[in-house]
């Protein structure tokens, strides 16, 4: 029942990892692109993605395919940086509202059509229009004319224009000096004319792109997806001939990947929790063990405007009461690392280790004292809810036991399917705390702090239902001002300093209770392939690896 759904950063699929500060294992041959022989078929197993057409690809399984079929303006790196892809240059106006990109000339789609500014505009509009009903269109919310496209008033976004065939100009409705980072998301991919609208079934099942690989045949649902090398790729061509991706059932997909790797059927695999110690002992010595700290975090989301955790001291008391090390060692067999920040360690420029003082070590006395000050009297009931079938049962029970033992409160834990859990969090009278996880869409602190903690992200509808992602209902004017100030700051270093301040404000208020990082653990066939590493989307860097 694990891995209830396919999303990589799914709310806590129990694929866990040990945070190695630097990206770990695998013989690192300097990550140069071109070394080693050409050819070879790379095999791996994934669970059924939601979509492999960039208009709606959202989780790591979907992004694995779109990332290799398409190339956008920029490409994210594993350690939270951004590399240029088709964008040869970028220019932003003083007010941070107009962006101008120049596009590399001469690159083509695999069906021969040229890749130009028009193909980017076509791709972006295709996603933003109302009929597409895309889950990932919200990344374009900043572009002028997006609201009209979403509501169906317009079929294109007014902010997009192509002054000349290879120059793309983007006007934003609000200043955002980090807009170029957003374009690393595959939703910003260009598409050929033949793509048609987002509901074009044939294209959804076999997209034609401009990436290092192209589709062989169409998407065999719940069975397989096959990619082959795109020989007239505009940038550095891939070495692999073919990538054979099996689609496994999500009920025990992880176990199947592991069994596949053990039997030599797969070159890349996840592992079920119980097998980790044995797998590490077996494969780490041979360099086939990849451990990487990824851009995602596991939290407890407290409801800050209602119920027992309304008071910041009560929230801190709960944080102090949890012995994260004991849970990691006992339940996760030492494979997780405790997190002491809101932003993930992979954002190296802004990472402030031990910022959350109450997360460093369990302190029963401090917890009791803060509980008393925070009005969290023994005997009160705190609810903790989590989604079933994703492997949270054990650690939630551990947290429940610890909080009950230390604070003498009654913790009521309930497991619910996803839809109900979300509805619970959104309803006006929500109280207590929820198991919560968040993964970055693109490597910028803004992608964490804004949607989770900005007052604007609460977005209550008519009858008080919280429709945004800030379901903790955290609202702090000082925090909001810092964020908008950061968005208005052009230079990167200046922005990062402001983000750090904002994180401190949020942690002082205990807006989210950090638990443990989201470090990813894979088995990789480094005997057969050189340069095999995990990319930003927690997928293998297919375009770069080559046969040994």
């Amino acid at each position, binding site marked *: 029942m*694990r891995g209830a759904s396919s999303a990589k950063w799914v709310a806590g699929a129990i694929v866990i990892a040990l945070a190695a500060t630097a990206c770990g294992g695998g013989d690192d041959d300097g990550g140069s692109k071109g070394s080693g022989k050409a050819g070879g078929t790379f095999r791996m197993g994934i669970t059924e993605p939601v979509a492999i057409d960039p208009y709606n690809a959202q989780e790591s399984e979907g992004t694995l395919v779109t990332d290799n079929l398409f190339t956008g303006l920029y490409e994210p790196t594993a350690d939270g940086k951004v590399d240029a892809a088709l964008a040869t240059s970028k220019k932003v106006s003083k007010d941070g509202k107009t962006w101008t990109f120049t596009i590399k000339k001469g690159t083509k789609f695999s069906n021969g059509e040229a890749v130009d500014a028009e193909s980017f505009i076509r791709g972006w509009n295709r996603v933003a229009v109302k009929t597409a009903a895309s889950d990932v269109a919200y990344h374009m919310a900043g572009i002028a004319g997006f609201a009209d496209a979403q509501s169906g008033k317009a079929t294109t976004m007014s902010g997009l224009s192509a002054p000349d065939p290879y120059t793309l100009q983007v006007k934003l409705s609000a200043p955002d000096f980090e807009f170029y980072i957003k374009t690393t998301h595959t939703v910003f991919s260009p598409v050929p004319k033949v793509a048609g609208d987002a509901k074009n079934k044939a294209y959804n099942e076999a997209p034609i792109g401009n990436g290092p690989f192209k589709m062989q045949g169409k998407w065999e649902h719940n069975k397989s997806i096959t990619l082959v090398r795109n020989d007239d790729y505009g940038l550095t061509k891939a070495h692999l001939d073919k990538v054979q991706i099996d689609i496994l059932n999500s009920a025990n997909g992880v*176990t199947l990947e592991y069994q596949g790797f053990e039997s030599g059927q797969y070159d890349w695999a996840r592992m079920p929790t119980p097998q980790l110690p044995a797998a590490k002992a077996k494969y780490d010595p041979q360099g086939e063990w990849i451990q990487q700290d990824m851009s995602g975090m596991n939290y407890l989301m407290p409801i800050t405007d209602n119920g027992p955790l309304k008071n910041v001291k009560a929230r801190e008391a709960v944080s102090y009461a949890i012995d994260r090390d004991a849970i990691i060692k006992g*339940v996760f067999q030492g494979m997780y690392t405790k997190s002491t920040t809101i932003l993930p360690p992979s954002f190296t420029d802004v990472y402030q280790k031990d910022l959350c003082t109450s997360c460093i070590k369990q302190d029963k006395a401090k917890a009791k004292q803060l509980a008393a000050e925070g009005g969290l009297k023994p005997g009160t009931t705190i609810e903790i809810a989590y989604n079933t079938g994703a492997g949270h049962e*054990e650690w939630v029970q551990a947290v429940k036991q610890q909080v009950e033992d230390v604070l003498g409160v009654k913790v009521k834990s309930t*497991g619910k399917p996803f839809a109900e859990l979300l509805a619970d969090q959104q309803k006006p009278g929500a109280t207590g705390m929820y198991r919560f996880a968040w993964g970055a869409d693109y490597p910028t602190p803004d992608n964490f702090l804004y949607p989770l903690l900005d007052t604007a992200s609460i977005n209550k509808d008519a009858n008080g239902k919280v429709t945004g992602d800030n379901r903790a209902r955290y609202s702090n004017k000082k925090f909001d001002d810092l964020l908008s100030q950061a968005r208005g700051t052009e230079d990167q270093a200046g922005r990062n300093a402001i983000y750090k301040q904002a994180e401190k404000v949020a942690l002082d208020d205990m807006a989210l209770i950090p638990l443990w990082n989201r470090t990813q653990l894979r088995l990789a066939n480094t005997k057969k392939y050189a340069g095999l590493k995990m990319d930003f989307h927690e997928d293998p860097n297919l375009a770069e690896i080559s046969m040994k």
Partner: protein
Amino acid sequence: MTELVSGTGEPTAAGPVPAAPGAEPSVARVSQWTDIRHRFFANKLAVVGLAIITVLILVAIFAPLLAPHDPLKQDLTQTLQSPGGAHWLGTDALGRDQLSRLIYGSRIAVIVGMASILVALVIGVTLGALAGYYGRWVDTVIMRVADVFFAFPLLIGAIVIILLMGRGVLPVVLSLGIFTWATFARLLRSQVLSVREMDFVHAAKALGAGQGRIIRKHILPNSLTSVLVYGTSNVGIAIVAEASLSYLGVGVDPEVAEWGNMISAGRNFMGVKDFMWTYPSLAIVITALGFILLGNGLRDALDPKMR
């Protein structure tokens, strides 16, 4: 009988033969129940079944005394210990004692198993009796409803109800009860149909007994026996169904010490720490076997022809 003697011979010499001395061979008054009891206890397998069930119920009742540790007490320093030492059957992912959880698991098994069959029996018997006795449209309506519930796969029905009512012992009992009454209704209906035709029912009617009285006094007692027998072996099936629900993650709450939860948790440890799932599996098999043997024993005792 036609006239015997064909008119030639005169009646035989002596009148009725004088009563012979000699004792009347006493035929022990064998009441129906003692006879059944004899047949039941003669059947070795049935006795084994009865023994298993008695032990199960005793363990369930005296769980607090038998369990060495508190089944819910976690000890994160002692997680996934192999059997032996302080924990005879090892510990689970939260360091809880598996033996204690196994013992407390018997409580859930007995409660859920018997309660759900009780629910199913109550619904099934009432509707089955009504359908069987009144017939015509009452019968068709009830039987069609029974068909719906009969065709509705048990696990799916239970899952939907548990999603509605949330996880816990009561929802599991209700959902199992609601989706297994159909078999009892059908069984009872056919019993009632056959008993209704029997002469003693006509006789009772002839003597002016009211409808309710006939059902209660005559039809039900005779029809109930086979339904009870079927019910006994079904308790085993209900326990297995309940464990399967937990296995699919929709049974009782996960932290509750229950065999299905333990197997579900243990499943990930297959090949690495098999003790996590082998002991709860054994418990379920023995319990299910116990009820089946008991059910078979009762059936054979009540219906000797079956041997």
